């Protein structure tokens, strides 16, 4: 019957049409592997065991990374994870309404985040706490969304990091438009060119908006890096529910390159992201990156993954932990000592304490916020509604209502 290669690389006239009506066991396995394992095309520079594997194509993109830089990436990941765990705990303690953990996706995000240049623009989904970190959005600035005091409190233009987008896929089109604008303004074409990076998940690839983003970006040669974090689950649905093929291959149908990178390998993520951003800033965009990773925690704090996946899977992925492999590498090459690790740990604890402190002291938003900034140029009907309500509500002041 069909080999995995045929199954995952159908071309006209080659191999079977697709899956058979009743697929063979072999086909099923090939299919699952295709969507849920790396395969030969997975870019990896650092193995789960912390070994640096040479790669003639991708090494040049991280040739400048010094031991200090690697320590920096390690620190970014540790702090990101610490923030994530602390926020998760804050939710458990009732300080946040919900939290969206990134546990396991630190390398994908920090690799991408550190590949960005200041002039680049980012459109995140809702789980990009690691990218936020790299864009100097302070972790405390993320809390309002999850505590219910605001819908995003950083300045998206100043940070060049758009607000989190919750409606799956929407931000992909917004990013395509932004990148078109970069091109229209002539900000593309050389080393100092601008690029845009947009983040979305494996599940998101099914949305029409993501497709339209692919169409627009390719037709307008937009300097846009599509960064798909395939964490293998869309809440309870595995990637097979979204695609027969590995997701990076989606790009084939549009005429731009797609690359699959080990999303638990911060060096590989950095290398591939730098390459992709470079292509874009020189005008060769768009590019699709599929960062193959794993969501080691629940979808959100309200999710119960034991209902849909086996504990084994998680255990297997713990062995591929993105932080651990960098630590091993640093230790093995004596590029970091105990003091360094202790320092980072201390810094993480400090940051966590700061986050907690900030969180528990967050004031409730004033009632006026409900009515503020609905319009830029004002709206007399709404203003009347506001005035009436605030006058009414002031009658309750002092007493609870």
């Amino acid at each position: 019957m069909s080999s995995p290669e045929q199954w995952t690389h159908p071309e006209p006239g080659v191999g079977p049409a697709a899956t058979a009506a009743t697929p063979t066991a072999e086909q099923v396995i090939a299919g699952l592997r295709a969507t849920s394992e790396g395969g030969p095309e997975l870019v990896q520079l650092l193995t789960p065991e912390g070994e640096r594997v040479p790669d003639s194509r991708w090494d040049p993109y991280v040739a400048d990374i010094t031991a200090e830089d690697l320590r920096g990436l390690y620190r970014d990941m540790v702090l990101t994870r610490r923030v994530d765990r602390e926020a998760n705990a804050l939710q458990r303690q009732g300080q946040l309404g919900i939290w969206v953990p990134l546990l396991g996706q630190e390398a994908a995000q920090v690799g991408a985040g550190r590949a960005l240049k200041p002039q680049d623009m980012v459109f995140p989904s809702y789980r990009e706490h690691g990218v936020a970190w790299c864009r100097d959005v302070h972790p405390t600035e993320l809390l309002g969304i999850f505590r219910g005091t605001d819908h995003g409190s950083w300045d998206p233009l100043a940070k060049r990091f758009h607000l989190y987008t919750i409606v799956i896929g929407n931000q992909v089109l917004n990013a395509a438009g932004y990148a078109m604008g970069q091109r229209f303004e002539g900000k593309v074409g050389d080393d100092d060119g601008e690029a845009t990076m947009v983040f979305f998940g494996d599940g998101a690839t099914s949305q029409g908006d993501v497709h339209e983003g692919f169409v627009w970006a390719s037709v307008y040669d937009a300097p846009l890096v599509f960064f798909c974090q395939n964490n293998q689950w869309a809440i309870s649905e595995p990637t097979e529910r979204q695609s027969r093929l590995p997701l990076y291959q989606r790009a084939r149908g549009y005429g731009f390159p797609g690359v699959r990178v080990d999303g638990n390998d911060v060096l590989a993520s950095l290398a591939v992201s730098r390459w992709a951003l470079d292509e874009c800033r020189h005008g060769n965009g768009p590019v699709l990156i599929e960062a193959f990773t794993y969501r080691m925690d629940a979808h959100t704090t309200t999710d119960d993954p034991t209902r849909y996946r086996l504990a084994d899977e998680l255990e297997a992925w713990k062995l591929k932990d993105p932080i651990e492999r960098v630590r091993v590498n640093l230790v093995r090459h004596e590029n970091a000592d105990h003091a360094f690790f202790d320092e980072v740990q201390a810094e993480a604890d400090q940051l966590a304490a700061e986050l907690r402190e900030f969180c528990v002291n967050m004031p409730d938003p004033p009632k006026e916020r409900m009515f503020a900034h609905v319009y830029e140029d004002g709206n007399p009907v709404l203003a009347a509604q506001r005035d009436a309500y605030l006058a009414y509500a002031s009658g309750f002041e002092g007493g609870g209502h």
Partner: protein
Amino acid sequence: MATPVMNQAADQAAASTRTVTLGKSLNLGLRAAMEADPKVIVMGEDVGKLGGVFRITDGLQKDFGEQRVLDTPLAESGIIGTAVGLAIRGFRPVCEIQFDGFIFPAFDQIVSQVAKLHYRSQGRVTLPMVIRVPFGGGIGAVEHHSESPESYFAHTAGLKVVSCSNAVDAYWMIQQAIRCDDPVLFFEPKRRYYEKGELDVGATPDPLFSSRVLRTGTAATLVSYGPSVKTCLESAAAAAEEGTELEVIDLRALSPMDLTPVFESVRKTGHLVVVSEAPEEASLASEIAARVQQECFYSLEAPVLRVTGFDTPYPPSKLEEDFLPDLDRVLDAVDRSLGW
């Protein structure tokens, strides 16, 4: 008309009666519908193994299989658009939209195909499909998880729209919606999923497209639907303590609306307050006001007043208590009406 099933059930306390939450009641209703008709299928994001994020479809995939309970790809237009095709083929799809705010990617399929196909085909093609939407706020959620989009669908000819407000209705209404040969938008008051009721599965339900007087009164009328019905009942109880008897009507059917009991009530009370979480402008509440002022022009002693969400995007959840109509705002409106 309209004997309150709730009270009936409570009175009987028969062997067939059990205490269930609104969410569980929907689950039981779905199960009953699937047992009754093999053409009924359930589809949506995470409705299978997980049983839906609110567990409304819990256990259904296990018992009915993967071809009757479909974990679909993540795209709402796809869910509704393929459900249309399945309905043309003879299935009766029950689609779950995970949260209110995520129905919009499917808006085109709903407005252009779901609502129009029966008309376009001069009745040759029927689309017996149900679109279930957990809706409304009050659960402390992030953005896009607390919307009340029902007015968009009431404004769309060709759709039917209903909303249950309690556990007992939930059980019957979901089955009636599935049996209906027209496409039905089924709005579920998510913040009431855990409210309990006494369900008698042997009872005879009211027709689906009927409103119901839940409490009689003479001073003023409150009309509402979905999550705000409970708010109205609580307001009426509070008012009663001060000697003001309010009549409370649960609309249940949002399109077409059964306003006859409302007209009758207003002719008696002369005062009407419409309560809904949705933003006010061009809403169902506006429609009720427009129709009541026309039908009861000489009976109204004050204008129809609306207590609704504000004309803002849904606010950060720490502010939702201010956004959502509550007992105080309802009674304030009653006072204003009585004092007009």
